[in-house]
């Protein structure tokens, strides 16, 4: 009878100094290789199938850059750096920093990275709702090609993404925001050692010049479905509408109807509506005021 490997015992450690070198290693080791940055998921999970650890912290992917096209965040930017980034803090992008602040503990945030939070793909991951409403695209690189994938298409199931074993997430790209864009992020916790999300909701609205019509709306949630999700039908109920009494409450209920929570479903649905209402209202208020 063959012995089943049940302990985490990788036999190789590499520290490539270029993305080219890193993706060659990922291609070589395929499903037996794992990229490791902060290690806060890799070393907590201790997957016994991993034979090679490929340290990606020396590839220069720790940055937050703002340019005429929008924002680019390197995949190994730590959550602590995102939390405290001056570039994010004074703009509607700051919901990314708010979400990062909620992850783990201050110690974990000094190690953990935004790329890791995405690639680990927990159904209750905290950063995805904020990146989803901001229209994030992910840059995935392999030895064969480089591709950009909308974050909307990235998650396929609990802890599963479309990223291949031979691919490295290098960058998160965020488009420029339209004028009169407001964002909001609210969260309820499970009250455990590290307070994982019970429900989190992020909302983004773009208002017209007069501040009475919603030109665009995006609503995303975590911990209420097998993956982080957009509430697309609810979004449609807001687009092109004038703000009137009862609309947002109705939309909030529609958000709850789109969720499919596995555990504590009644409470999660109920709280999805509560947080959706709060975030939509706050996003509208921010879109129509001068203060972010």
């Amino acid at each position, binding site marked *: 009878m063959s012995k089943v490997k049940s302990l*985490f*015992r990788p036999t*190789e450690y590499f520290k490539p100094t270029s993305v080219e070198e890193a993706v060659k290693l990922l291609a070589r080791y395929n499903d037996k290789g794992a990229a490791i940055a902060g290690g806060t998921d890799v070393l907590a999970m201790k997957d016994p199938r991993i034979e090679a650890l490929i340290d990606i912290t020396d590839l220069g992917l720790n940055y937050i850059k703002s340019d005429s096209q929008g924002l680019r965040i390197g995949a190994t930017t730590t959550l602590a750096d995102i939390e405290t980034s001056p570039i994010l803090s004074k703009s509607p992008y700051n919901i990314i920093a708010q979400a990062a602040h909620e992850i783990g503990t201050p*110690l*974990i945030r000094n190690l953990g990275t935004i790329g890791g939070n995405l690639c680990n793909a927990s159904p209750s991951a905290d950063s995805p709702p904020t990146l989803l409403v901001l229209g994030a695209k992910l840059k995935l690189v392999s030895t064969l090609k480089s591709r950009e994938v909308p974050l909307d298409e990235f998650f396929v199931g609990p802890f599963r993404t479309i990223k291949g074993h031979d691919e490295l997430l290098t960058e998160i790209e965020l488009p420029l925001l339209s004028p009169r864009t407001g964002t909001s992020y609210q969260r309820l916790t499970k009250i455990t050692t590290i307070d994982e999300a019970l429900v989190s909701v992020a909302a983004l609205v773009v208002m017209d010049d007069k501040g009475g019509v919603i030109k665009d709306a995006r609503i995303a949630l975590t911990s209420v479905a097998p993956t982080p999700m957009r509430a697309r039908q609810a979004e449609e109920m807001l687009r092109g509408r004038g703000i009137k009494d009862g609309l947002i409450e109705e939309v909030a209920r529609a958000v709850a109807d789109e969720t499919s929570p596995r555990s504590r479903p009644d409470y999660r649905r109920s709280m999805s509506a509560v947080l959706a209402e709060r975030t939509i209202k706050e996003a509208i208020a921010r879109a129509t005021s001068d203060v972010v």
Partner: protein
Amino acid sequence: MINIRLNVNNEDYQVEVAPYHTLRDVLRDKLGFIDVKNGCNEGECGSCTVLVDGKPVTSCLMLAAQAQGKRITTARGLATDGKLHPLQEKFIDCGAVQCGYCTPGMLMVAKALLDKNPNPTEEEVRAAISGNICRCTGYQQIVEAIMAAAAEMNK
């Protein structure tokens, strides 16, 4: 096994490690730094906290191999020339040490906080230690000790 050099409390150590050894494993089991505790092994209790280039991290979630080329500080590195650091003195004075298991981790986090923010509010102290669990004190004495140390160091 790989041969690596680690700098701990300003001294270099040459040590053989496996790819899967964490920094905590190596500091505690191979180099004898038993001030670095073994708690939950998954980064949630904070008892393994050390400073890496001045930043507090849970050493159970960092590979030993990843700590090459970095400055590591453990609680033992706080005292200088046999004299206790003000944080250590205040922890004793304020009764912030009961079983002592969380203490090295708390000290490391407190040191990093005061290095960055010499005059923290109580809120900021509580936020800084939010990744370190204490089962004994109820945290009050720990917070007082850190505030007292800050006051002492700012004199």
